[in-house]
């Protein structure tokens, strides 16, 4: 009997693994989460891919922009400005792993915005950037 229980347990576990999607979220779901956050701020008028592109490419503090590491072309491979480490493309069109894990997205927005702006990005800025990244095609 114990043996059977064990086998059933294994089968349930295996089924759970199969049922689990490869990615926790889709980029569109991530954008919706950021939007829900932004909607709470006064005067919110939606996101703009154009504004996002400008933000992405403009040098701010420490002579850094997002493109310093991710390049001006988010479908291309980037390179860490200090260590030269290769960074995979940031645009979902070129890298299907991007913006599929809310925790990872939040962690890197926090780190990178602090590097570039000396502060965290606002929900508006994050939504603009992601809207831009979703428009770039391979």
């Amino acid at each position, binding site marked *: 009997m114990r043996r059977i229980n064990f086998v059933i347990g294994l089968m349930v576990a295996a089924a759970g693994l199969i049922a689990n999607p490869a990615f926790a979220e889709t980029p569109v779901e991530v954008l919706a989460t950021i939007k829900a956050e932004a909607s709470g701020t006064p005067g919110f008028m939606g996101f703009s891919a154009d504004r996002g592109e400008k933000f992405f490419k403009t040098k701010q503090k420490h002579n850094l922009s997002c493109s310093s590491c991710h390049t001006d072309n988010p479908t291309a491979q980037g390179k*860490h400005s*200090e*260590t030269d*480490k290769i960074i995979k493309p940031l645009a979902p069109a070129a890298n299907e792993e991007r913006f599929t894990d809310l925790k990872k997205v939040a*962690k890197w927005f926090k780190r990178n915005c602090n590097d570039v702006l000396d502060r965290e990005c606002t929900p508006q800025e994050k939504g603009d950037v992601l809207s831009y990244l979703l428009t770039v095609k391979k």
Partner: protein
Amino acid sequence: MFKIKNTTLRFVVVMLAMCATMSAVTVSDAWADGDHEGQKRTVSNAKWKDECGACHFAFPPRFLPAESWRAIMSGLDKHFGSNATMDEATAKEITGFLEKNASTKKQEVQAKPLLRITETRWFKSEHRKVAERDWKNPKVKSPANCGACHTQADSGDFDEDNVKIPK
């Protein structure tokens, strides 16, 4: 090829194979603090590789003593000018992995633990023959860019036979 039909025999063969793998691991561990610093060694941990390999090559734990790793892990908010903080559970797991596989070589007496591999006496001595202009080569950029010269660094292999200084 012949097939092993007998289950007992198969069991014995599997056990033997396991013993062989385990002793292979022990042998490579024995090199850790000998003269074979460059010898390929592959200790790994998924979270370490992911977190500590995002901005730079994931520096193998054997190149710094445990107190250095502890100091690095408790100062991730100001990590060489970057913010490298992570959730507590992940940081704890990585700290454990680094401590467990850290260098056990006798350290020079130090008021504060060194945070850079590239500032240890060991590193300077291994690299004393590297010319100033090679360190300054834009293709190298920083002494911490191990992979610029150690072509197999990603697999944990720093053997001098696999070194190629970019020109």
